[in-house]
């Protein structure tokens, strides 16, 4: 069962009742497939659980965190203990609480930047693929240029131009991940552009906008979903790099990259400050990558950019 079956035009052609039935069956089987894929694959299961816990912790950080993330106590550089499971930093702040609050920034930036990159990039890609001609030529030149550089470098370049701060970091990271989505959307648009259902839509007098949003977009979602998943992990990594380099959100918001950066002067005396923040980043990225891998299998997608 392909996503094409869900196309509204085909549905009405087949007759509403039959289509509803097929749709329900498709939904049920797809839901079953998700569950089976998750159960079969321990890596996907691990990723799902870790991200679930992390998201809840981030959402309810003020209630879940054992201490206030900026509260200083008279116990600098204390190692892990029952009161402070991950230890205390040089200013006497509880590391676990700071990491839980840091998760908010990481997840927020990861999701918003990818959402923005997805909307813009997919829009550009579909327009380029559908219209062709000079629109395609200009879009492709731009994408090729950006493609020559890794996303993290592009993000650093853009922060160099825009400056630091939450809004600027989000804009920079979004733009840095734009080309991945534009490239995939354009490629997929070119392959579905000459399908019969697109011709049929055109014959019935559908506008370009309607064809692009109702006929092309729904049929190219699978590789885009996979790319989006993979991208979230690299966007989180990019935000951490920026914070680590001092180009991040701000000096007084605890973020994973910043906490790690601040710990550098103390790592010979306080290993936990160097180990745990990075562990949080790695487990998050790993979990998302595991989920992305499972998605790739379930959705049967080959193309998605790894690692850059």
């Amino acid at each position, binding site marked *: 069962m392909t996503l094409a079956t869900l196309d509204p035009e085909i549905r009405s052609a087949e007759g509403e009742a039959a289509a509803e039935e097929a749709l329900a069956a498709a939904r049920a089987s797809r839901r079953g497939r998700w569950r089976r894929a998750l159960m079969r694959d321990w890596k996907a299961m691990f990723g799902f659980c870790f991200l679930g816990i992390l998201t809840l912790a981030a959402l309810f950080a003020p209630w879940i965190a054992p201490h206030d993330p900026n509260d200083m106590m008279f116990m600098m550089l204390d190692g892990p203990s029952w009161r402070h499971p991950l230890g205390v930093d040089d200013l006497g702040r509880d590391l676990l609480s700071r990491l839980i609050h840091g998760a908010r920034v990481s997840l927020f930036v990861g999701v918003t930047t990818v959402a923005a990159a997805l909307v813009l990039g997919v829009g550009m890609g579909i327009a380029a693929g559908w219209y062709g001609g000079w629109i395609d030529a200009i879009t492709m030149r731009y994408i090729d240029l950006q493609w020559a550089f890794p996303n993290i470098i592009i993000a650093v370049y853009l922060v160099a131009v825009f400056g630091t701060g939450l809004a600027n970091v989000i804009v920079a990271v979004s733009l840095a991940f734009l080309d991945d989505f534009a490239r995939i959307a354009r490629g997929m648009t070119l392959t579905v552009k000459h399908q019969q259902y697109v011709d049929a839509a055109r014959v019935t007098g559908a506008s370009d906008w309607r064809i692009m949003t109702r006929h092309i977009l729904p049929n190219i979602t699978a590789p885009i979903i996979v790319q989006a998943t993979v991208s979230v992990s690299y966007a989180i990594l990019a935000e951490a790099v920026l914070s680590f380099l001092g*180009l991040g959100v701000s000096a007084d918001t605890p973020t994973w990259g910043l906490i790690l950066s601040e710990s550098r002067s103390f790592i010979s005396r306080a290993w936990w400050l160097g180990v745990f923040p990075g562990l949080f980043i790695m487990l998050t990225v790993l979990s998302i990558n595991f989920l992305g891998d499972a998605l790739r299998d379930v959705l049967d997608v080959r193309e998605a950019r790894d690692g850059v």
Partner: protein
Amino acid sequence: MTAFLVRRILGAVVVMWAVATLVFFMLRILPGDPLSAMLFDSGDPAMADVLRAKYGLDQPLYVQYLKWFGLLLQGDFGASIYGSRAPVSQIVLEAMPRTLSLAFLSFVIAVSIAVPAGLLSALRRGSATDHTVTVVAFLGLSMPDFWLAILLIIVFAANLQWLPAIGYAPMSDGLWAWLSHLILPAIAAGTAFSAVIARMIRSSMLEVMSADYIRTAEAKGLRRTRMVLVHAFPNALIPVITVMGIAFGLLMAGAVVVENVFSIKGLGRVLIEGILNRDYPVVQGAILAISLIFVAANLIVDLLYGVVDPRIRFQ
């Protein structure tokens, strides 16, 4: 072959021109000109006008662009507007060998780990070795390079005290001095690259090993080592080289970040310091120099690809 070469080199030149142009215009379109950074937002307006005239900032943008570009072609990147006021070209030329050394060593270490790991895991598919390589590759790809750098410092510099934690020594100080300062940063910068290449070699080898000519080689009783190394591996490398450009980008990005952890004053450190000091000429110079390395690396990969796979040359 000549036509192929010329086309690729021209393409690289165009990319460099586009990067330079984008950098120029983006830094100038945005509100707040470099002068406000130079005067720390407190200079008097008359002084600002004098400086503006001195640096040609009162002229139309396209005149500035053409002048700037003319100077750029002569290797004049302007001078730092912060601290030393040293010429940017000098700063970049000092930083360049450090970054290139780091990238080179990183590449060597990464490839010498990735090739055997990828081969072993393909040849013993499904074995414990294969699973281990897969998991380690996944970890390597998910591990932030700056964190790995910190872990390496904790273990090998702070606790075991085998290697220095920070700084750089040029080759003229002796090979070991150079190497000992670069080993940890090189490992940190190259891990993600190594993971990508190992996975690529694995999947590419698996594909090649099921090809007809390998079956023939097996059928005529060829020794397994010869079959793998002479018949399979070179062919498996073709798709690996195509991703080499993208993967090398990972390594360079790693180098740029890791330099900052180990206080190596390479291009990455110069770039970040320039950004933090709002030293625009230095930022421009560093961006152009880093971009040049990328474009050159991509060009080399393209040409290599043409050498390895003749079909590309004659398209």
